Each structure stands twice: as C-alpha cells, then as structure tokens.
C-alpha cells in the first residue's frame, strides 16, 4: 500500500501528468466562478480530449479541473451574492461580510478553508482505500448488481422536489443506455434501423447535450452578463486576515472537512448537503450563534471546507464500486469508460498506483488552485461581468467539438442538439438532470450484472450474504427517503398554515 502511495506520487510528478493538471486548474477556477456552469459542464467538455490518453494523464487533466471548481465558486457568492449550488451556504455570511467591507477577508477565509478541505478530503480518500479494498475484492456479479441498484435508488435522493420527475428522468436515462447491441442476446435494441445507433449512444455526446448545450440555450435566452450586479466594488483587501481566520478556527475547519468527506462518500447526497450540514454544524457548535447570518467568518469557513473535502470522499464509491456519489462523479464514471478502465476490483488491484495518483492530484490541485486564486482574486471576480454574447461562442465551440470528437460522426452533433433541447426543457420544468446521467451510467451495467448473476447462480444470487446486506441498504435508503419527504411535506404544510 505504501509502495502504491509513493508510486502514485511519482506518477503525479511526471512532467506530462503534472502539466495536464496545471492546464486544467485555471479552467476549473474559471468554471467555478461562472454561476450555472460548474464542474459537470467542465467535465463534459473536457472528457472528449482524453480519448487515447494514458489514464494517469487523463485523470490529472479531469481531476485537476474538478478539484478546484468549488475553490472558485465562493468568489461570486461573496462578492455578488450569486451562489452556484454548494456555495449558497457561503452567501449567508460571505455576502454580509462583503457588505461590511470585509470582502477580502471573506474570500481569504473561503479560499484557505477550501484548500485545507481539499487536502483533508484527499487524505481521507487515501486512508479509506485500505478499508474499502478487501470489501470490494469480496464482491462478485450479484453484489455489483445490487450496488448498481443501490446507486439507482439514489435517483430518489437526487430528485429534489419531485420524486416522480426524478424517477422519470432516471428511467429515460436507463432506456437510453439500452440503445444498441445487447451483448447478452445479440439483439439490436431501439436503433430504428439507424447504423449510427447500433453501437449505442456515446455517453459524452448526451452529457454535453443535457448540461453544456442546455446552458448555452439558457444563457442565450437570458442575455446580459452572468453576474447581476455592478462591478464597481471588487475589494481585495483583508485576504491575509481571512487566511489566518481559517487556522485560528482550525478545529472547525478540520471537523467540517472530515464531515464533508464522509458526506461525499454517500452516493447521491451531493455537495449542497455537505455545505449546508457543515454550516448547520458550525451554528450548532458556536458559543454565540446569533452572529451567524450577519457576517461571521466561521459561516464562510465551514461550508467551504466541506465543499472541497467532499470531492475526495466522492471518489471512493466511484472508483471502488462504480457507484457515482454525485452528478459530476457520474460524468467522471463516463471518463473511466472513455479511457478504457472498469471501476471496481481492477482499480484497487491492478491500478492501485493510479488511484493513489488521483489522491495526489486532488491534494496538489487544491493547494495550487488556492495559490492561483489568491493571486488573481480581483481579475477572477470580473469574469462574471463578461457579457453572455462573448461567452456563448466559446462554450458552444468547445462543447460541439467535444461531442464530435467522441466518435467523429456528425450523428453525435445531432444527438447533442436533441439532448440539448431535452436538457433545457428539464432545466425549465424542474426535471433533475443528475438522475438521468445516473440512469445512463448504471442502466446498462445493472442489466449486464443481472444477466451474469442469473447465469452463474440462478435466482439464488439474491440470498448471498453480501447481497442480502445490500438489499437491506437499498430498502433502508428507500424507506428513509419516503420518511424524509413526508417530514418535509408536513413541515411545509405546517409553515403555510
């Protein structure tokens, strides 16, 4: 294990791997600053570049970007009160701090806690691998089938306000994954005699459609600039005080980083949950909770530490079980397929060096990302004022090139266009897009593992001990979700009356 850890470091420090990481860190920071774009769009755009690359280079390229997306996101949240998902919790105290003239301090605290959180997340990942490894090695097709089912139940967690809409989106994703030749029966399904569809639809083209293309349509409609306020007061003073605050409140930073990492490991719970839970934890454990919401620096440190640490935790179920813990991890799972790797046992046996190189990339990217951000706090914030008319051609060009290069077929562009419209519809009518991605990734896998399990053990695969444990987890997840939804409904009804 120690040897793999050192090998991972050496792989990361190879100049080509390191260069790939360095190229995408600024991209991640910029994407983080642009509200509504985020890491999922970034991953969707970057994955096609990785065709034919060595896995370590490809993952340095992708994780370098993804690790620092949340490092950039607190900047517009603090300066302009324009949060992007997980950074919403940061607004609660970050924006009041900016209004009080402490924008620099808030940004310094946010960036430093993001960096610490990211490194702690990477350490948590490294420490968890030895525990997860024997568990994964005990898994066979029945257990992996049940893991895909556990993953699919998290569609309900990712569904947001409407469970029905989430399940419909997840179901659509699963059906899309069935398009093409079925390896079990040799039947070509849902291809409608189109040769292009015989090999199935490439996940990259769909993901680019439902995320990047949908954002292009949305931006084109809204117009203006991304930030809705004026760029007159972008303050950079007090940054150093904010960095010091992170270390003065080191217990809170560390606690929230660990909590974030654990939440990141739970598939489907997502980044927003991590930041809000940690914000709540900070308020709960504070001696003077009345300061929160009025510009308390701890209210910035807690969610930001959790935001970055959850990425390390999120990689564990993705790499070890092939179960993505979030929408972004579902897209990253697509990258495994593009690169030619199978998440699961192989990753923790044959490719353990690569897994540890991911840990190192996460740690390095977070440190470098924070240093870059601290240097460019002021100009980075101004990106939000670039007009949409200048941003749309850039996103469109890279998205469509990415889609086309998936298989060099014009059909890919048509698929991206269709899914762009579907993705925009989903965005407008509040159909969650995460479950759809989860369905696409896990649909075909679950079917293959089911047929394999039935061929190997018959229906008795359901009574294997580990399978029974996973069935219990699946049922517990479903019951918990139903209970939580009912509780939330009761609370909202009570609040209304």
């Amino acid at each position, binding site marked *: 294990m120690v040897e793999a850890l050192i090998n991972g470091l050496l792989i990361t420090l190879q100049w080509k791997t390191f260069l790939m990481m360095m190229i995408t860190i600024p991209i991640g920071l910029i994407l983080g600053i642009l509200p509504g774009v985020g890491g999922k769009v970034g991953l969707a755009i970057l994955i096609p*570049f990785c065709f034919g690359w060595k896995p370590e280079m490809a993952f340095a390229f992708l994780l370098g970007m993804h690790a620092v997306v949340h490092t950039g996101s607190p900047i517009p949240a603090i300066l302009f009160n324009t949060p992007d998902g997980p950074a919403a919790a940061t607004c609660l105290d970050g924006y009041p701090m900016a209004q009080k003239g402490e924008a620099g301090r808030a940004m310094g605290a946010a960036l430093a806690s993001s960096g610490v959180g990211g490194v702690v997340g990477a350490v948590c990942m490294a420490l968890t691998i030895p525990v997860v490894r024997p568990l994964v090695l005990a898994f066979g097709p029945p257990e992996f089938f049940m893991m895909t089912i556990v993953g699919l139940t998290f569609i309900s967690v990712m569904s947001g306000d*409407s469970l*029905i*809409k989430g*399940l*419909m989106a997840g*179901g*659509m994703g*699963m*059906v899309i994954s*069935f398009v093409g030749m*079925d390896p*079990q*029966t040799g*039947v070509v*399904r*849902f291809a*409608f005699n189109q040769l292009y569809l015989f090999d199935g639809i490439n996940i990259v083209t769909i993901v680019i459609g439902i995320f990047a*293309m949908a954002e*292009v*349509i949305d931006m*084109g*409609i809204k*117009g203006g600039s991304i930030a809705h306020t004026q760029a007159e007061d972008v303050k950079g003073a007090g940054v150093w005080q904010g960095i010091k605050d992170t270390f003065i409140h080191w217990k809170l930073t560390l606690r929230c980083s660990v909590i974030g990492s654990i939440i990141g490991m739970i598939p489907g719970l997502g980044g927003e949950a991590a930041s809000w839970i940690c914000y709540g934890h900070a308020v709960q454990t504070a001696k003077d909770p009345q300061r929160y919401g009025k510009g308390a620096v701890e209210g910035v440190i807690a969610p930001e530490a959790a935001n970055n640490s959850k990425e390390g935790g999120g990689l564990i179920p993705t790499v070890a079980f092939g179960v993505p813990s979030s929408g972004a991890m579902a897209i990253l799972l697509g990258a495994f397929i593009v690169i030619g790797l199978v998440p699961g046992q192989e990753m923790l046996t044959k490719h353990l060096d690569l897994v540890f190189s991911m840990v190192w990339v996460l740690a390095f990217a977070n440190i470098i990302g924070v240093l870059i951000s601290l240097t460019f706090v002021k100009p980075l914030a101004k990106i939000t004022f670039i*007009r*949409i*008319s*200048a941003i*749309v*051609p*850039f996103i*469109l*060009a*890279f998205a*469509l*090139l990415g889609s*086309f*290069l998936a298989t*060099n077929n*014009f059909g890919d*562009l*048509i698929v991206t*266009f269709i899914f*762009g*419209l579907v993705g925009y*519809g989903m965005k*407008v*009518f509040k*159909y969650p897009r995460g479950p759809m991605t989860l369905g696409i990734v896990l*649909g075909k896998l*679950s*079917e293959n593992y*089911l*047929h394999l399990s039935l061929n190997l053990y018959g229906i008795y695969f359901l009574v294997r001990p580990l399978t029974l444990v996973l069935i219990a987890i699946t049922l517990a997840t479903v019951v918990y979700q139903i209970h939580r939804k009912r509780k939330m409904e009761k609370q909202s*009804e009570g609040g*209304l*009356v």
Partner: protein
Amino acid sequence: MKLRSQSLFTLFYIFFFVIVIIGAMGYNAKARLIPLVVAIPCLAMSIIQFTLDSRKKKVKGRSIEDDLFHGVMEKMIHQEVIATEDEKKGKKRSGKAKPFFKIVLWLLFFYVSVFLFGFLITIPLFTILFMRSKGERWLPTFSCAAGLWLTIYLAFVVAARISLYEGLVFRLFGGE
C-alpha cells in the same frame, strides 16, 4: 383544451416511454425484460405527472370537486398559491418563447455551417455574426473570434494533431 408547456414536456415523456414499450415488444423475452421493467412504471409515472400538471391549472377555478378531492381548505390554499405562482412563471415562459426560438435558430445555423464549411470556418464566422447581432463592437468581436479560432487551432490541430471535419463544400472541392 389548451395545454401548458409543462404538460407538453410531460407528454414528450409519455410519448418516449410508449415508443420504448412498443419497440421492446418486438424483441425476445430476455432482451425486452429490463427495458419493459423500466419503461412500464415510468410510463405510469409520466401519466400521473401529466395529471398533476393538468390539475394545477384547474385548481384556480376552485371547483367543488377539487375541494372534495383535497379534503381540507388549507391544502386548497396551498395548491392555489402553487397554481398562481405557476401561472406567473407560465407568463414569463411565454415571454421567453421568442428568445428561445432565436437561440435555437442560431444553433441550427452553427450546425448547417459546420456541415457545409467545417469547424475552422464556422467557429469564427459564428462568433462574429453572433456577437455583432448582440450589439458588440467590432474590436471585441474580432478579438474573440480570432482568440477562439487560435485556441482551437493550436489545441486540436497543432498540439493534438486532430484533423477537424472540414465540411461538405471543401470535401467536394477537395475531390474526396
């Protein structure tokens, strides 16, 4: 009956799952098993969602049937609030229809241009036309177009050595 855009989008799901079920019926038992296991409940949920979408609209009329259906008046008020909010959003959405079709037309222009002239001509051409149509000045427009073209040329053609699709027109003139 006039359908709201929300209901139309749900109808798209119903249509999708119906097509999947009809298509799956033509395969052998093993090949159709999982698609049907997924599509049939999803179709049922789509129909439920469609009913919910339609009901939200009716609530505004505050019919006796609705009162009886919901049981309590509080629930009714809640629904009315949702319906009113949805109506407001609906009005906003109808205002968005024109810009939506505009951006879709721009996208279609991009596609047709790529098909005819390839990526390396379409990208700067689209950037110039799009930015100018949005009232940008010539200098930033040309800077963006040149910067984008250069980035793509250096990243894909020079560094990655990928031959980008050159378009039908150049293929015909090139004699391929």
